[in-house]
């Protein structure tokens, strides 16, 4: 880890949590705000969000651009984010490696496109244009999918790595999305993590989900943001911290079925512990290696 670099942990800001967050803001290093909910806000309301960003670093998180598509992202959506970034002055903004519409069809959900060279090229074009319009590149998040996208010639880690390398963009690694895709499609989660472009990961999401079942009894893990992050997600966070040389900004996401606020702050603290354990493991390994070299001589 770079000297002076510092990991941070925060929470996704939600209206249901606003009062508790306000009263305990010192417990968080960063807050993440869902950008699309603010595109139609008044100037006065945006000024309050900007005031919040002066008290604590704020990251904007978009869900409606559909950047990872062979189709071109609409200019109006990039302009909306650009205006919000200009008014709120967040420290970063992020979006998803997903498509959300096709032609006149609005899916209303983050969907995995076919993972192929054509969507790599389309994503890179959209991301570069988004960066030019907004003024900074987005941090890009992997998505969970219940359906392995057809017409795919690339595995997910390879597809993600190609896009981020070509766009020179950072990654928001959602560890529950990674875990769900690993569980659902028969991958070892730790190996799946190692296959991702970890040198590009600057941000992390933690969330939870539940098993869902078809009428025929087929089970899949759904990333619903309505449950606590499971133990494997914290284990993946520790593993990431042991491997990464980047400072990591970790955000706990919860969209409903809220537990007591003390439960959420305990999960934030558990993330801090996982990060510290991972960093300590990396430090132990790097301190051992030079002695091994000396002994070999």
């Amino acid at each position, binding site marked *: 880890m770079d000297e002076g670099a510092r990991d941070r942990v925060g929470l996704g800001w939600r209206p249901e949590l*606003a009062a508790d967050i*306000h009263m305990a803001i010192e417990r968080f290093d960063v807050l993440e705000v869902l950008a699309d909910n603010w595109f139609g806000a008044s100037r006065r309301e945006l000024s309050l969000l900007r005031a919040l960003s002066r008290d604590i670093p704020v990251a904007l998180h978009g869900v409606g651009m559909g950047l990872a598509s062979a189709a071109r992202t609409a200019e109006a959506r990039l302009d909306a984010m650009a205006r919000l970034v200009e008014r709120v002055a967040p420290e970063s903004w992020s979006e998803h490696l997903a498509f959300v519409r*096709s032609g006149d069809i609005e899916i209303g*959900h983050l969907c995995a496109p076919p993972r192929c060279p054509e969507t790599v090229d389309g994503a890179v074009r959209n991301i570069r244009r988004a960066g030019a319009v907004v003024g900074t590149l987005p941090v890009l998040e992997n998505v969970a999918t219940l*359906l392995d996208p057809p017409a795919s010639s690339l595995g997910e880690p390879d597809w993600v790595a190609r896009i981020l390398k070509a766009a020179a963009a950072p990654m928001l690694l959602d560890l529950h999305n990674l875990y769900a895709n690993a569980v659902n499609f028969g991958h070892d989660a730790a190996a799946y993590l190692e296959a991702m472009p970890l040198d590009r990961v600057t941000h992390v999401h933690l969330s939870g989900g539940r098993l869902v079942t*078809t009428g025929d009894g087929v089970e*899949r893990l759904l990333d619903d943001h309505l449950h606590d992050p499971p133990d494997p997600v914290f284990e993946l966070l520790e593993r990431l911290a042991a491997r990464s040389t980047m400072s990591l900004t970790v955000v706990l996401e919860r969209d409903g079925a809220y537990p007591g606020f003390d439960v959420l702050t305990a999960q934030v603290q558990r993330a801090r512990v996982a990060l510290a354990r991972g960093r300590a493991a990396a430090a132990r390994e790097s301190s051992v290696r030079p002695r091994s070299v000396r002994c070999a001589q």
Partner: protein
Amino acid sequence: MSARDVEGVLAALYTNAEFRARFLADPAEACRAWNLSAQEVASLASIDRAGLELAVRGMEAKRAARPRGPVRSLFALLSGRR
């Protein structure tokens, strides 16, 4: 290859129950409206039906849920108004 058209088929599958029923009955016929390669049609025909069922169920539940408005909550909170 036309990834854009594959995205179109997926979008229709996720949102249009009538199209989805036609597709599940005869995928190749249902895909005629798009400019797809034979390989793409074959891949779509062997789509993960369990995943599709669960994805559609989740999306329909999400569409049925009311959208939230966080802005007023923050304004009310920080201005002391309820």
